[in-house]
């Protein structure tokens, strides 16, 4: 981790070692915010969160305080209010929630208790990605300790997912939590009014909730001064890809990609050149290398045509074939489409088939235009953001690296031969789809 000239908030105290034990967390000042919030009471606590202007860390970047204020007040609600924490973290490139749970599980628990108090929740649920078994165990152990110490006044249930990316989408998560097939619901009504078991529900990402104790500790106004306007506070950036020191780095919003990649991450090995940056997980449109000095905050990245999303930064160097990369991403979304709505179910598969044909050098120029058009026909027509993600991401590769796509068509194959850094890299998706759809296509 880089030397902390920046404030460390979410991962504070864990610089020297994990804060899994309650005792250690307490020594680092843990659970003082919860006590403070109890004194403040629900109204004032929520007010602090609003003042801090914390934007959601799960992807969409909606302000937490504002979302919480859509909930009915506990007195008005006809049914119990629930708090749900999204720990499904399944986006390629994202691994920050995992770090938070592993290293500061009590900060999440404390955040849950404060948020539950602020909104008057009767029960809290943590929906954790099924593959995060050891994280589940760490969190469960911490929870047991906190319960034994009578720190948990609003009960928390930790539920393990079963391996579907779509269950990270908030309404699909609710369906899954209710024991149904994980598929998104149509919105409105939004979960704040009709959520889990049709009750008002606040859903936030692990990191968003883990930010809350520091908001209370510092005070909303002071917190809002960290970072930049409209992107307050710090962010745990998951840095991966062609970079020397991948890992999680907590930095204030407004830090540039260059600082993250070169100062924290040690740059790219062997002096290779940066080719592109995926700024916010696989779902965010790719940025060309010339954007490296861009500020990492919600609005700047959006202005540049992408999203900060889950702040999962993937570095791509000059060895990568962008067609292969687009195909890899297309395969992921095809495989993870839940199948509920037509444009995504059919479109993600069509996109993947065209991409594969281009990558194999069998496609025509017309098919490249078709690819762009299919992306356009998926975009904005789907039930949830998954279909859009695929369409936007794939379209961004065509837009910024069209020459590489054309080269595949003209040369009848990959211009990189097998020197591309992606050549031969296989993923679980390959195993599933090469099997099934490959067979089909071969028929």
């Amino acid at each position, binding site marked *: 981790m880089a030397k902390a000239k920046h404030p460390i908030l979410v991962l504070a105290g864990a610089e020297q070692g994990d804060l899994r034990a309650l005792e250690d967390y307490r020594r680092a000042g843990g659970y003082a915010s919860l006590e403070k919030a109890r004194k403040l009471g629900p109204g004032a606590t929520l007010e602090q969160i609003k003042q801090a202007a914390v934007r959601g860390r799960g992807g969409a970047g909606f302000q937490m305080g504002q979302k919480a204020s*859509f909930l009915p007040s506990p007195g008005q609600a*006809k049914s119990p209010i629930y708090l749900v924490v999204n720990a499904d973290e399944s986006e390629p490139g994202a691994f920050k929630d995992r770090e938070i749970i592993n290293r500061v599980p009590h900060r999440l628990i404390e955040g849950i208790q404060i948020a539950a108090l602020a909104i008057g929740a009767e029960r809290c649920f943590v929906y954790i990605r099924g593959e995060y078994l050891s994280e589940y165990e760490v969190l469960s152990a911490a929870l047991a300790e906190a319960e034994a110490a009578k720190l948990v006044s609003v009960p928390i249930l930790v539920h393990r997912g079963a391996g*579907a990316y*779509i269950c990270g989408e908030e309404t699909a998560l609710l369906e899954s939590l209710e024991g149904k*097939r994980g598929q998104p*619901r*149509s919105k*409105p*009504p*939004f979960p*704040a*009014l*009709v959520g889990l078991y*049709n009750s008002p529900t606040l859903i936030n990402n692990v990191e968003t909730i883990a930010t809350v104790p520091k908001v209370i500790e510092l005070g909303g106004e002071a917190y809002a001064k960290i970072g930049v306007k409209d992107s307050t506070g710090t962010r745990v950036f998951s840095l991966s890809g062609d970079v020397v020191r991948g890992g999680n780095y907590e930095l204030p919003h407004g830090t540039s990609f260059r600082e993250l990649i070169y100062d924290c991450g040690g740059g790219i090995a062997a002096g290779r050149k940066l080719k592109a940056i995926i700024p916010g997980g696989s779902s965010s449109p790719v940025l060309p290398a010339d954007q490296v000095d861009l500020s990492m905050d919600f609005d700047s990245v959006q202005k540049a045509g992408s999203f900060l999303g889950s702040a999962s930064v993937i570095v791509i160097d000059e060895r990568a074939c962008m067609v292969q990369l687009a195909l890899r991403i297309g395969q992921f979304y*095809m*495989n*993870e*489409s*839940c*199948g*509920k*709505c*037509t*444009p*995504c*179910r*059919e*479109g*993600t*598969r*069509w996109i993947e*088939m065209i991409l594969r044909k281009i990558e194999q050098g069998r496609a025509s120029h017309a*098919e490249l235009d*078709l690819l762009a058009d299919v992306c356009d*026909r*998926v975009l*904005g*027509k*789907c*039930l949830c953001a998954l279909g859009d993600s695929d369409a936007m991401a794939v379209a961004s590769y065509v837009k910024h690296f069209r020459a590489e796509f054309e080269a595949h068509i003209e040369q009848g194959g990959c211009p990189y031969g097998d020197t591309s850094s992606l050549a031969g890299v296989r993923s679980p998706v390959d195993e599933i789809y090469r099997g*099934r759809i490959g067979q*089909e*296509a071969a*028929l």
Partner: protein
Amino acid sequence: MSAPELVGGSAADRERIAHELVTVTIDGRQVQVPKGTGLVEAAAAAGVEIPVFCYEPRVGAGIGACRMCLVEIEGMPKLQTGCTTPVTDGMVVHTAGTSEQAAAGQSATMEFLLLNHPLDCPVCDKGGECALQDLSFRYGSGKTRMTFRKRSLEKPIPISPTIALDRERCIMCFRCTRFSQEVAQDEELSAVNRGALSMIATFEDEPYRGPFSGNVTELCPVGALTSTQYRFKARPWEYEQAASVCGLCPVGCNVAVQSREGRVQRVLSRNHPEVDRGWLCDKGRFSYSHLYSEERILTPRRRGVRELEELGWEQALDELEGMIERAQGEVVLALSGSETLELAYALAKIVRQGAGSDRVVLPEQAADALDPFRVPISALAEAEEIVVFEECPVLDRAPLIELWLKQARRNGAHVTRIGPSGDIQRGRGEAALACQELAEKESALGKRLRAAERAILLWSGGGGAGGCHLAALAHALGLHEKEGSGALLLPASPNARGVAEAWAAAGDENRQPRQIGLLVVSGDEAASEPQVRQLAEHARATVALTLFAGDSGEWADLVLPATGYLERSGTMRNLEGRLQRLRGATGSPARRELSWLAELAGRLGVDLPGSEAALFTELSAKVLDGISLASLGDRAPLPPRVEAQTFEAARAESPPTLLGGPLELIRYRALFSGPEVEHVPELSFQRPAAEVEISPEDADRRGISGGNEVVVRSNGTRVTLRARINAALLPGMVRVAAEHCAELARGVEVSRP
């Protein structure tokens, strides 16, 4: 974020909201609709079509899956789905007709839906009535840009003996799965896999056994779920269609009977919103093929030296005329309760006016005691409290009522079942006592019923004294004074009430012969009743009018071929008291009863018109207050409630002492039984198993475990059945389907062989 105001709220809230009007503009046309109306409905009211695939309000609120209904709404950046959007005041909407963006959305959806859709139209049963075909024709591009091989899957897959699934044709609209999960609540159909590999399946490929499964074949907008009976039989434009009513149970679901070349090809729902809401049970939907069973008798038969021998109609009528003469007024008529009013009336006239006897065996006691508490069946969906006196499962007697009860529960009603395996366990014959208890002031459930704005009582079982016990309770609870409250009796036969009325209309004398010179048995159900069979043993001569000669063939001297309910025209009175019209499908392989009855009447000097309409006019003048056939229309109205009189509670009889054994046998007619179902091979998988249901206590005491082969015996009758432990069953009772009961008496003993 705005919340639709439709969520929750009391009925009063809903009513208030419904009366508040909002103004919306759709494609430039302004309409006023009640607040909370869906956009698809509001557009329809404005004369604008928003095409849909997945939207089907009967299976629940819109889910926004197919994306066919995309529209542009001013003030919203993205396209919205019409099926999930309730209109708000001042909303300005542009559908694909006027918005380029919406048109692009719709055309994208069309293209994606057709991407992998097989080119099956020429061989697909849905062709001609397929939503995908119709909407492609209107909104599709006519050209495909798909150059890859289409997804191909194994097909068709039988998901039950009655339904085939073609997964290539499925557009994943989730109508079928929502029906299974939300409406039928059998949870047997679901989607498996993700994304482009998603498909509809049953759990571990078990057959779809839910008794309402056939509805998915009508819900499916494409040819993915089709009926195996109907496969490749005909095209929708080749049909003649009769707007009729199902005659297999006292619900009387409205059906469309479609035939081609004189044969019924299928039975579809005709949606009477107060009766069936467009659903049918599988018995009603799939039974039609019994008409073409090889075992059906089509010509008269007479008992010969060894077996029944065929004879012509002229001879048969000579024979029957002779039998009536020889009986010298000692004639008994046994009715099934499956006859139309007209047929029962014609038979009654022959017996009462032609043969000079006034003795009848009616299928069950039916009376008008509940007419002051009449409610449409659909009122169940809105009720707060429902009490079912359920000696016989509602599902077996009146299957659709069970669907309405599910809907009621989903809408928040308390449903309390009182019976041998109910929420409140009461033995057989104790329902009348339970009624008396509820009528008492201190009864907690009675209090809830009194307090409820809308409470409904149902009686499903025998011994109801024609509804008198229930009427007394309903009166005590004041249900006649509350709209939406009421009481209904579920009879065992489809037209019990109607045949009693018809009998009464045919004469007013009361000559009761002491002996039986001639027993006239109408219908296969009556022919299979043990009681009727006993009468036959005492009768000097018997004649039976039946579809099949299975039962009647054993003892009748003359068997005359009957027609099936799908071939008959006339009227029936259902369990609500609603008089509904049957319209016979074209053609019947057997001669119409009314034609030869009129001929016989002529010989006997009875004035009997040969047409249903003329018979109805006669009946109407005598017992139906002069109403006209036309006033019944295609979807018959419910007659108004009659004024409540004061009720003497009928005395509750104490249950009879058991003879033959210590356990009381509940002999029930299972849903999938009866002469029609028994002749439909595709339904044989639904027939009741040869088993005896026994309570865990009684089983333990006898060392019986589930699945054991056991002997059920009484008075010398022994039946070997498989034991099924039913934890909900009251100790002391056992249940066996009628067809496996043989001659067992009411008291039985069960033991290991």
